[in-house]
């Protein structure tokens, strides 16, 4: 007699007593079968049946039982699903009838392992089911109360190399309560409040391995922030053409991108992660997208979604993000639409809005900048590391090779050649189209920096704030102006540069200050260095670096000066693995010294010898995107 039953293409159901959940199993993707039948999908896991361990989706009883009871009988339903449908109907209506079911159940509906060589009988399992259903309904969700309480207290410990602000300690307290309860959540703090830092603290204090999925443009940034704040964590980037899932074995944290979540869904869902983090989780706001499906397939004890904008346009986006983080919390999509989305969006029903807020509250933490204003300094600087695209990396390597192969000469000639090389490399980091001087180029997806800047500005504009973007290059400014206007849906993005007349300048400044012009203003670093008062801006972006802190500070101070009553956030963009990053590090490390050395801009680089120069400009391997 074969020890293993034949494979089945029909969805099977079983109650798993020690997890107190109903499991779907059988076909390759039980979640899709469940969804097609209007059943909750549950979270991935493994269950032990008579014939061995099988992959399954596990659903809490309060979600599974009503859904099973409402299931329509049909020819395609397996006997085990029919059996648990009957059990659910009995449990909700007349539990005494459960006993009569035992004789009708197939082994598939009850043969859950009980110790090494025994399995549950149908009668025993039904009796355990009865008391588990009773317990599930007779106790209010204790974890909800714990999660709500946790955000009011500050975490005592934060194993990161940084001093957390009080609201970040509260965030960490909530995050660790999520992990303790095996629950999921959405951390939706405003941009700039340190979602990354709070998350890293959670990863450092929770058993791994952990997975971070983020946009390609910030893979490098995550790896760098992890190394900075939690240096004891082994970080593997699962990224780029030479990625290897063997690296999962030794890593505490694996950092990967949304595109790989799609392409390598198999490898990534084969691991039982400690915490699975989705950064910029609005990427899965469309629940039907392949990305959202792949995310829901990840197996993790705790799922965490990070986003500054949990709802951009429609409530269904919140449903989708929450259905990753805490599957089933908001019910099926259809029910959610009827119960919340339609009343709130079509009829402005405040009561439905409040009920939704109460339901979501334990699992969603959102602090606005104005809520935590007293905790924050009035100027915050962050260095934003971006990833080179494959195209950028090819151009970059070629430019470096050509420069060194051709010889840099010496004296005055050398100085000129080195500066030419630096300019080329900086242009490549900015955008291939700038370097190649393309006419009406395609811009999206070719520069990690441009994509990242577009994301940051998207959030700024959505939150009704205003931003200044500085670049040294007229050509890059022109490219940015067209691209940002189109991507952010603005009427236009003005560009203040040396060629703009005094009257034109004044009009741009006035429009920006009084709000009549679009909320983004591009400024050439040379033109905008002095004399302008742009305090309407609460964000300043340095698209490329001058490498002279004094010049940059002067530009930043267009926004951060007397008359500015709000906090200013400064984002300095740097491309990882390139000279941009190395110079930035050098400057950060010895800022005081550097100011003395590089007081005249980039001249000091021209004085380096070949080896020193090579160390500064050569591209390191790990940094390239797809």
């Amino acid at each position: 007699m074969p020890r293993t039953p034949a494979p089945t293409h029909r969805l099977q159901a079983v109650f798993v007593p020690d997890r107190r959940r109903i499991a779907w199993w059988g076909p390759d993707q039980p979640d899709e079968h469940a969804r097609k039948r209007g059943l909750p999908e549950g979270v991935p896991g493994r269950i032990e049946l008579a014939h061995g361990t099988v992959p399954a989706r596990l659903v809490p009883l309060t979600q599974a039982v009503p859904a099973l009871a409402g299931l329509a009988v049909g020819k395609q339903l397996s006997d085990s699903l029919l059996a648990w449908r009957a059990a659910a109907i009995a449990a909700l209506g007349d539990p005494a009838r459960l006993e009569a079911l035992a004789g009708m159940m197939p082994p598939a509906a009850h043969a859950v392992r009980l110790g090494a060589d025994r399995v549950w009988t149908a009668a025993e399992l039904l009796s355990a089911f009865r008391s588990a259903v009773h317990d599930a309904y007779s106790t209010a969700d204790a974890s909800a109360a714990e999660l709500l309480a946790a955000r009011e207290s500050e975490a005592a410990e934060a194993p990161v190399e940084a001093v957390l602000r009080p609201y970040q300690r509260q965030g960490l307290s909530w995050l660790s309560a999520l992990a303790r309860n095996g629950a999921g959540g959405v951390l939706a703090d405003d941009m700039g409040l340190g979602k990354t830092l709070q998350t890293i603290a959670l990863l450092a204090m929770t058993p791994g391995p952990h997975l971070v999925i983020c946009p390609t443009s910030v893979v490098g940034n995550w790896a760098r922030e992890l190394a900075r704040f939690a240096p004891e964590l082994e970080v593997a980037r699962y990224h780029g053409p030479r990625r290897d899932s063997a690296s999962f074995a030794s890593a505490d944290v694996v950092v990967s991108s949304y595109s790989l979540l799609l392409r390598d869904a198999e490898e990534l869902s084969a691991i039982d992660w400690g915490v699975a983090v989705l950064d910029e989780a609005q990427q899965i706001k469309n629940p039907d997208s392949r990305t959202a499906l792949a995310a829901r397939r990840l197996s993790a004890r705790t799922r965490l979604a990070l986003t500054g904008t949990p709802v951009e346009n429609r409530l269904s986006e919140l449903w989708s993000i929450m259905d990753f983080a805490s599957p089933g919390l908001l019910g099926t999509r259809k029910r959610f639409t009827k119960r919340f989305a339609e009343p709130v969006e079509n009829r402005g029903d405040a009561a439905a809005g409040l009920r939704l807020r109460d339901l979501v509250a334990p699992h969603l933490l959102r602090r606005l900048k104005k809520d935590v204003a007293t905790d924050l300094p009035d100027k915050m600087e962050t260095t934003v590391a971006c990833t080179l695209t494959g195209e950028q990396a090819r151009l970059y390597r070629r430019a470096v090779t050509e420069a060194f192969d051709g010889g840099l000469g010496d004296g005055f000639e050398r100085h000129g050649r080195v500066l030419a090389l630096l300019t080329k490399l900086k242009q490549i980091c900015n955008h291939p189209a700038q370097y190649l001087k393309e006419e009406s180029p395609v811009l999206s997806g070719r520069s990690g920096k441009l994509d990242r800047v577009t994301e940051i500005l998207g959030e700024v504009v959505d939150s009704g704030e205003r931003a200044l973007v500085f670049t040294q290059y007229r050509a890059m400014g022109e490219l940015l102006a067209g691209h940002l206007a189109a991507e952010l849906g603005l009427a236009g993005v003005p560009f203040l540069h040396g060629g703009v007349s005094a009257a034109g300048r004044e009009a741009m400044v006035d429009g920006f200050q009084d709000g009549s012009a679009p909320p983004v203003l591009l400024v050439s670093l040379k033109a905008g260095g002095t004399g302008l008062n742009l305090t309407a801006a609460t964000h300043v972006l340095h698209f490329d670096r001058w490498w002279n802190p004094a010049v940059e500070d002067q530009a930043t101070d267009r926004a951060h000066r007397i008359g500015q009553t709000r906090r200013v956030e400064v984002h300095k963009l740097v491309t990882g693995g390139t000279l941009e990053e190395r110079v930035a590090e050098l400057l950060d490390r010895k800022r005081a010294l550097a100011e003395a050395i590089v007081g005249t801009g980039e001249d000091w680089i021209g004085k380096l010898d070949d080896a020193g120069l090579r160390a500064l400009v050569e591209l390191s391997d790990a940094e390239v995107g797809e």
Partner: protein
Amino acid sequence: MTWWSKRWPRALEALGLSYPDNRLVRARALIRGGAVDDLLVSPGEITAWVDYPRKTFGVSLRVPVLDEAAWAAESGRIAARVGSLAALLDDRLPEDMLSLFPGEGELAVECPCGRGLCVHVVVVHLAFADLFEEDPFLLPLLRGRGREELLAGVRAAMPPVPEAGPPVGVAVGDVDVAGFFDGDREGLSAW
């Protein structure tokens, strides 16, 4: 429409509503026209302002609040079926809460126009039904218990489950592998 919001208007029958009744048609039109302001539901009372005609009428509908003993009996009845609690948690009113609807002589109405079952009263009554449709907890609230209180009371009243001994199970070798997926299909389908 849900059964409970359909059921609600029938409480007016005791006050003289009959079918077809022109007051229902006019009240619907007034609600659509935005004649109702500040509809508030509190234990024992629904109040609202109705703008019609050219004047504002402050209307109140009253239903007695249940006392502790009545609530204990009510909670016990709801708790007897887990399905009722499951429905409440899904924002649906279980049918065994029908007894909370105003019974004979329980609904008292008051309107300054002083014409008994006037169109103002019908307007407020139907406007409540529209809110009630979305939020079934308004009925227990009207009877004296908010959502959390109601759920806590029902949970506390759930009857205990008979104790089961520790499972013994059967040996893995005795599991019918050939018939692993086959149960009593007919019996299960008929359930």
